[in-house]
């Protein structure tokens, strides 16, 4: 076997220090297979070496949390013996290189994370960030990513019910594709990945192994350079058909009691699944690679251990259950092979063609993996109140905002996703949170993904808080009680102290918000080194959150429902225009402070709104987010097809706000706000209850007609709709590429 040279070590993404540490742990030089195993296990992607020390600060516990971070997905109790299993994961770099397959395999990967826990996936979400719309690659990337997500999810028969999309030049060379899967399991039948006990068969299930994406795991941790196009690694091709069979077969096997442990083969396939299972079970594993189902001839041990072929699982069975399991996988026409056994040792031993090709202590791959406290450079958040033109005509600004890339309707996207399969989607894309009914019950799960990268850039701490607060707000706005969240931390190069600060501060912000809002983090994923030519992306810690509705009949949605309703605004308006979409789209500047997030106010306002919905007193609600009040009101009007006459009382701009002016009032992005549309006879009771609970709440208009009327400006619904619905199809209609397949 070839000698390990410093170049070879560097090519494996290991530093000299790290390599020295390997020598020390082994007491000898590794061979090439072993070096490959270390390189993936010690990669940022698998070891979280830059973030682990900080992730510990996230709150992860609550009485309803069944499984926090550390397993394939988080699990929360949702009553009646049911459990929700969910996680979000990124597939950023592969999606930039090959948008269709990159996004598709991202969807496949996160689904496996969820069904490997014993859950049937019931919903998917996707949080996407693309470069500037006018960048030459953007349209092609949007079209490919959306087709890939749909191509995989639609075939799986799992509804894709929500997500978010932003465009910003910082993602020009580094798009983000974060996919979230929510599954449903029985709380007493959750499957974990600890390969406990010796002498148990290790079985391989799913697709055959090919030379797919070798080095994918290390690639996901390496910064892109100019030559990214040349160094194109083999991208993986997804096979949703096989995944669907794998899902059904796994669930069928899980209905027996044959499984001790099971884990999907994700990044670094066979290596990470076997090493992690052994590590968690406190056992050793011996693998015989000759038994691995192979798609290509003459595969080496190195290739098999590092292959990232998709749609594969590794399981440890109770001895004697092999035949029973095999029959199930045969029925579903999938490969099945006993490829190893668990042992009493703590070693991962790999044999190929009769030779031992790797023999490593499991602990060296996991616990002994490097852990860095990377230096960071504290930086105060951006501050200052940006100047803007106070005399801008409201109507014109509104139309421009509604038709801007970040605020326009996303229908073009979600109509390519089957969002109603499984017959439980009670709130479709287009609202605040999607709601999926728990089949044949009254309960519903609400779900959302949120983060505002420009706030995180201005102030990572406030931005981290805001991401969680907005997610919880979107859940509360449909009437769901926030339960738990998953975080997908997308950042630049952590070896740069400025970037490391973004990571540290954002985690602190997330942690604080999760604590105050009672929404623990139960799973997550980090994607670092999102840089092109030294330019990092906007810090993007995406939060995916789920909430519970005890009765889906009592669910609020954004569309106005009745003429004559009174529109109420909950929460304080200060006219905060720093980092607002108004400032960027209308004034052409990205500056100022991120809006501060008052977590206690978020909490009280959230419960106030939620309890009104739960009590059946409010059925129409929308949180106020990007673009501010007037944008949110327009969305309610458009969704319901009814107009509104706005007439807020004087003095609604809160204390400390700059002189009352319409632009700041209508387009400021103050946090913690909701709009409620309420039958007039219920208004007094709601206002006095708000007063009692010290929740700011005022009437600001009346629902009716076919126009939005504000400050003497009248806009027809048709005008608003044209602006809101027009941008995406027009932009994509100019597509130079037909869909990929």
């Amino acid at each position, binding site marked *: 076997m070839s000698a390990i040279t410093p170049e070879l070590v560097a090519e494996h993404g290991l530093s000299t220090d790290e390599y020295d540490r390997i020598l020390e742990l082994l007491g000898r030089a590794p061979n090439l297979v072993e070096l490959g195993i270390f390189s993936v296990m010690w990669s940022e992607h698998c070891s979280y070496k830059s973030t682990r020390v900080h992730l510990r600060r996230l709150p992860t516990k609550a009485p309803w949390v069944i499984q926090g971070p550390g397993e394939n997905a988080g699990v929360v109790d949702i009553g009646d013996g049911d459990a929700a299993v969910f996680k979000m994961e990124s597939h950023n770099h592969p999606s930039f290189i090959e948008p269709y397959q990159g996004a598709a395999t991202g969807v496949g990967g996160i689904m496996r994370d969820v069904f490997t826990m014993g859950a049937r996936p019931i919903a998917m979400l996707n949080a996407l960030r693309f470069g500037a719309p006018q960048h030459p690659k953007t349209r092609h990337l949007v079209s490919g990513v959306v087709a890939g997500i*749909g191509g995989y999810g*639609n075939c799986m028969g799992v509804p894709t019910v929500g997500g978010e999309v932003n465009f910003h030049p910082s993602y020009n060379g580094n798009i983000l594709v974060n996919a979230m899967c929510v599954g449903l399991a029985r709380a007493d039948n959750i499957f974990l990945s600890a390969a406990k006990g010796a002498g148990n068969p290790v079985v391989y299930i799913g697709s055959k192994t090919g030379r797919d994406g070798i080095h994918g795991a290390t690639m996901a941790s390496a910064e892109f350079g100019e030559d990214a196009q040349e160094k194109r690694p083999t991208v993986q091709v997804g096979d949703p058909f096989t995944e669907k069979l794998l899902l059904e077969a796994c669930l069928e096997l899980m209905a027996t009691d044959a499984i001790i442990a099971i884990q999907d083969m994700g990044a670094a396939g066979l290596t990470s699944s076997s090493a992690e299972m052994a590590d968690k079970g406190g056992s050793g594993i011996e693998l015989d690679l000759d038994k691995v189902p192979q798609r290509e001839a003459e595969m080496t041990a190195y290739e098999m251990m590092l292959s990232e072929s998709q749609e594969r699982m590794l399981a440890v069975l109770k001895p004697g259950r092999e035949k029973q399991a095999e029959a199930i996988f045969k029925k579903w026409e999938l490969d099945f092979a006993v490829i190893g056994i668990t042992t009493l040792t703590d070693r991962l031993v790999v044999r190929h063609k009769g030779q031992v090709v790797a023999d490593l202590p499991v602990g060296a791959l996991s616990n002994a993996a490097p852990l860095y406290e990377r230096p960071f450079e504290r930086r105060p958040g951006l501050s200052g109140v940006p100047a803007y033109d106070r005399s801008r005509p409201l109507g014109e600004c509104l139309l421009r905002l509604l038709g801007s890339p970040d605020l326009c309707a996303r229908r073009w996207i979600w109509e390519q996703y089957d969002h109603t*399969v*499984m*017959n439980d989607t009670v709130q479709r894309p287009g609202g605040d949170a999607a709601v999926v009914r728990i089949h044949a019950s009254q309960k519903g799960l609400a779900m959302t993904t949120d983060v505002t990268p420009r706030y995180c850039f201005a102030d990572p701490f406030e931005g981290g808080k805001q991401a969680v607060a907005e997610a919880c707000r979107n859940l509360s706005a449909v009437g769901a009680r926030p339960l738990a969240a998953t975080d997908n931390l997308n950042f630049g190069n952590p070896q740069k102290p400025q970037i490391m600060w973004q990571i540290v501060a954002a985690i602190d912000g997330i942690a604080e918000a999760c604590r105050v809002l009672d929404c623990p983090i139960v799973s997550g994923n980090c994607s670092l080194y999102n840089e092109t030519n030294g330019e990092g992306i906007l810090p993007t810690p995406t939060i995916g959150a789920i909430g519970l509705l005890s009765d*889906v009949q009592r669910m609020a949605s954004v569309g106005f429902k009745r003429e004559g309703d009174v529109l109420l605004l909950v929460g304080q308006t200060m006219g905060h225009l720093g980092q607002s979409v108004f400032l960027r789209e209308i004034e052409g500047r990205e500056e100022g402070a991120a809006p501060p997030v008052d977590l206690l106010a978020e909490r009280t306002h959230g419960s106030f709104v939620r309890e009104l919905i739960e009590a059946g007193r409010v059925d129409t609600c929308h949180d106020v987010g990007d673009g501010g009040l007037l944008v949110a009101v327009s969305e309610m009007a458009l969704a319901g097809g009814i107009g509104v006459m706005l007439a807020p009382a004087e003095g609604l701009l809160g204390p400390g706000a700059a002189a009352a002016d319409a632009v700041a009032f209508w387009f400021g992005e103050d946090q913690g706000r909701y709009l409620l549309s309420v039958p007039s006879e219920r208004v007094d009771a709601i206002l006095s209850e708000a007063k009692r609970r010290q929740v700011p709440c005022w009437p600001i208009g009346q629902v009716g007609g076919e126009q939005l009327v504000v400050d003497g400006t009248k806009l027809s619904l048709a005008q608003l709709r044209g602006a809101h619905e027009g941008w995406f199809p027009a932009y994509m209609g100019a597509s130079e590429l037909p869909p990929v397949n």
Partner: protein
Amino acid sequence: MRAKAPIPGLMVPSMRAAVIVFPASNCDRDAASALEELTGQKTQMVWHQQNELPAGVDLVVLPGGFSYGDYLRTGAMAAHSNIMPAVRAHADRGGAVLGICNGFQVLTETHMLPGVLMRNAGLKFVCHMTELVVSESQSAFTRKYTAGQHVTFPVAHGEGNYTADEATLDRLEGEGRVAFRYAPGHNCNGSMRDIAGILSEKRNVLGLMPHPERVCDPLLGGTDGRALFQSLIETLG
């Protein structure tokens, strides 16, 4: 699946339904639960490798989904499944067969229905509510609708562009075999003559792209699909 009581006020029907499950069918459960809710009876799930239908089945449903991944052509591989000769024999005996979405594609691939479903004219998967016109109420599937009635069903497909030669189209229309059409302005896939669903010569086989099983529950956005299943229950029950 948790049992659910049938909708009160319905007669107790006795129609027995079977849903065929192909590899990567994915609306099988949706069809079964819609049927169960309306009939109060258990629907039989039939695995594609079986050679026979359960005894006494009145209605066979070929559900939506991506049988065999939609690889090669939609419905092509499912058309050759072990169970299909039995489904064909059932239809030949006059038994009712309902193919929804992928099921419609399977029916054209087996030539139990004429024509083909090509890729959507817009080349994209489409999922949204669609307005349809019931063009034919004289069938076991549509008798509880009135001809000309507008209904709203969702579509969710990438290949629903109904295509056939002019002679076939004329014949379908002449024989009153176009059961559903996309309402003017709602043809979402480029189908010829706005065809959304067609009947077989003996009128006991219906294939349609939109999903009636997704509109049997007001919480899911409508109940326009119920009448289709109720028509069957009334005829076959």
